[in-house]
């Protein structure tokens, strides 16, 4: 149980800056997920916390104790690796117990903890096996067991599920969520998988090019992205970004005109000049085929329809400056080439300025 605090943490490899000065406080028992595109520095950040890489600048503290100079084994952290990284020549039991030997625990205490961990993860029948005799899911479970058994102050997960197939991944994700509920230990989790981030996190940290783009609850990040990068990165389907021109501004927000001619009044409080060019963001799942009260209509021509089973992705041309992607539930009877009217709610739109910053909303 621990708070983890990063103050001005940065990392350079030679002249190449991987992490710029990062300040972050992770609360006791919190589940924090780092997400970002590959190369954004999320794994490096985790390795800095682990102590596997030395920081270039800044300090890392755990429970107020400065651990920046401590080797990995003395920070009281446990890590689960993407490749599992089990000791190939040791049985499951010895894999799990290895860290306890280093902690100089009594033999009885050691075997009690190993047995408890094995029971928790359903590993009891596998204790005598070698890693090569296990399936991928079992290996991942052993890797998690090896972390749990040490009763660390915090867990670090480095893309732990990305080597598993989809079905197993969903199952293990659920198990990790249960584990956190049960242990209530601080967890830092790196992933590029949105679903993992959204479902597991108390707070999500979105990283890009070594900088924090936004920190917030999954709801926050999804509904109120701080900038265009976060808006585009989070969401199972990429947000539509449309060029718009400001018409005027009133107490109910900013009225903008789309390239196709439709007007939308986005509830934004920030002052903008009439005639300014902005970008409007709307998620594919927020476009609908049926009209409703206060909805804005967008007329266009269907360019393409992709059926993905539970829904259809419809690409609409002519309604806005660029093709618009809508995720529509149910079956659409229109054919490609035909006209279609889509509806949106203005409060589900976002406005971004030239720098990609989200304009402040009416509260």
């Amino acid at each position, binding site marked *: 149980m621990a708070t983890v605090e990063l103050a001005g943490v940065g990392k350079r490899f030679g002249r190449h800056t991987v992490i710029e000065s990062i300040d972050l406080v992770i609360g006791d028992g919190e589940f924090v997920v780092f997400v970002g595109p590959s190369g954004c520095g999320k794994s490096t950040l985790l390795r800095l916390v*682990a102590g*596997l890489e030395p920081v270039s600048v800044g300090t890392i503290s755990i429970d107020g104790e400065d651990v920046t100079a401590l*080797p*990995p*084994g*003395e920070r009281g*952290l*446990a*890590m689960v*690796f*993407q*490749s*599992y*990284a*089990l*000791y*190939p*020549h*040791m049985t499951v039991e010895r894999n799990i117990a*290895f*860290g306890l030997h*280093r*902690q100089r625990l009594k033999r009885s205490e050691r075997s009690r903890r190993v047995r408890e961990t094995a029971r928790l993860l359903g590993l009891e029948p596998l204790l005598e096996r*070698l*890693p*090569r005799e296990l*399936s*991928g899911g079992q290996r991942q479970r052993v890797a998690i067991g*090896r972390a749990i058994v*040490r009763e660390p102050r915090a867990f670090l997960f480095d893309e732990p599920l990305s*080597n598993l197939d989809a079905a197993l991944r969903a199952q293990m994700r659920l198990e990790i969520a249960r584990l956190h509920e049960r242990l209530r230990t601080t967890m830092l989790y790196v992933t590029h998988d949105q679903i993992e981030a959204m479902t597991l996190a108390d707070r999500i940290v979105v990283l890009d090019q070594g900088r924090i783009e936004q920190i917030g609850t999954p709801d926050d990040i999804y509904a109120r992205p701080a900038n265009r990068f976060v808006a585009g990165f989070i969401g199972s389907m990429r947000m539509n970004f449309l060029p718009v021109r400001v018409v005027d501004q009133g107490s109910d927000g900013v009225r903008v005109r789309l390239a196709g001619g439709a007007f939308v009044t986005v509830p934004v409080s920030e002052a903008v000049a009439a005639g300014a060019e902005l970008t409007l963001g709307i998620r594919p799942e927020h476009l609908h085929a049926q009209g409703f009260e206060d909805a804005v209509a967008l007329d266009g021509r269907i360019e393409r329809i992709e059926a993905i089973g539970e829904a259809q992705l419809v690409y609409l041309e002519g309604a806005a400056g660029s093709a618009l992607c809508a995720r529509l539930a149910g079956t659409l009877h229109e054919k490609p080439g035909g006209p279609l009217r889509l509806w949106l709610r203005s409060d589900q739109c976002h406005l971004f300025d030239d720098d990609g910053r989200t304009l402040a909303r009416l509260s």
Partner: protein
Amino acid sequence: MLALVLLAAFALFPLFYAMLTSLRGGADLFRPDLLGGSFSWSNYVDVFRDQPFGRNILNSVGVATAVVAVSLVLALPAAWALGRVPFRGRAVLLVTVLMVSMFPQVAVLSGLFELIRFFGLYDTLPGLTVANLVLTLPFTVWVLTTFIREMPQEVEEAARMDGARMPTLVWRIFLPMMMPAMASTGLLAFLVAWNEFLFALTFTLSADSRTVPVAIALLSGASTQELPWGQIMAASVVVTLPVVALVIVFQRRIVSGLSAGAVKG
């Protein structure tokens, strides 16, 4: 399947012929048929009685074992540095190591001879061991380097997270994981040293310091006109069978070890 049988027959016939001949004496040696005539162990007795052949075997075992031990002890840290520690000129050094292993033995023979005489190691087993290292070290370093490069770094990091410091890391993690590679390179080094002929012929003089290949080559009969075929074959069989056994025993280890499975599926 037929090709396999033919290949096996082609490879094994010399050994079979050697075993057959080693059991025959006198005129029987020249019988064309395979199973006719009388068989006896007398060649095996003679080969040990007429010269210090037992001593020669011990020499070979000693030299080969020393070569394996020294090769591995020197190659492991070298391979570690070449595989894991980034430093300037690493690639050049690796290629140089490979080049050294390409030198024909004869090219280094006279130079090495001077060196060994200078150090007073002529006609001694340590001298032979040093000479054999020239042959074994380059490829042991090379093979172990390749293996270390392919060893997953995350296992090492997992151990560090588990609190392992350098000695524990080396003894409990690296060495056990390296065992299959060490066994296979060690075995190859052993075979090289066991079969090495040119250095052994050049750097030894007395019958007591000869190794097996030289001893067999220099076996002489009662007169210069007679070559003791039976004894030569008996000696060959005696020194071949243990090596074959060694390979069979270790091969199982090597194969099972290489499919380790520390990471992924």
